[in-house]
């Protein structure tokens, strides 16, 4: 909910990760670099469909691809994932701290109510 320091990359990372096929591709790549053909095998998808997903992952900086024309191996880049993890942690911290303050507020509000009731 609170803005992050690296917003554009974070949102493109989140968008890229929001798709199950792309997550499966990343999981596969965590075992090591491989070719597009190899990647396409378990997904029952056409090569162009897989390439589309790879482009999204590449734009998000989650994968890097080799430049040789014949065999363009795909490789995982975990950097942006750390930003997602940071965003999640930031969110958690936001609510932890808000809840600490809510705790204090509720104690103070109840003390006030008691005082008022006694005066009646």
């Amino acid at each position, binding site marked *: 909910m609170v*803005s992050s320091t690296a917003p554009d990359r974070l949102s493109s990372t989140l968008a890229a990760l929001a798709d*199950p096929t792309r997550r499966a591709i990343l999981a596969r790549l965590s075992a090591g670099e491989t070719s597009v053909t190899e990647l396409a095998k378990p997904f029952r998808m056409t090569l162009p469909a897989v390439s589309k997903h790879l482009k999204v992952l590449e734009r998000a900086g989650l994968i890097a691809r080799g430049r040789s024309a014949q065999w363009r191996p795909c490789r995982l880049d975990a950097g942006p994932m750390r930003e*997602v993890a940071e965003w999640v942690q930031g969110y958690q911290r936001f609510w932890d701290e808000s809840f600490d303050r809510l705790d204090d507020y509720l104690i103070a509000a109840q003390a006030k109510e008691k005082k008022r009731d006694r005066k009646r």
Partner: protein
Amino acid sequence: MIESANSARPDMTIVRVFDAPRRLVWQAWTEPQRLAQWFGPKGFTNPVCEVDARPGGALRVTMQAPDGTQYPMAAVFDEVIELERIVWTGSVDHDGNVSFAVRQVMTFADRGGKTEVTIQAFVLRSTPESAGALGGMEQGWSQSLDKLEDALAGG
């Protein structure tokens, strides 16, 4: 859409029990002058705090950090069930571009005079780009993310 958020696994869950009756906790969430007193990280104030707690109503808060930096946030109430449940969806936008949305489901449960508050967050994708190839909204990246991180740590 709210149904799907209910059935899907939340991306984040935060639970806290407060030593206060549910009525008071509810008021602290739905009355702007009360919400302004606790919402946000330690040391923050809320110079703007507007809460229209009914379906379709808006939540607008501008949080101010101790250094004076302001962080505006906005959300729309999807569902409000008195004393029990609030659902709102907030857009996380950067430089005027809505990049993704977070739906938050807050439930309030009476625990013998104390109140248990649970926040479940669902990250919704909303960019034209992310709506691309497969279309529709999808949720639940974070559990896969955990698995992926485990895999990375193992590799």
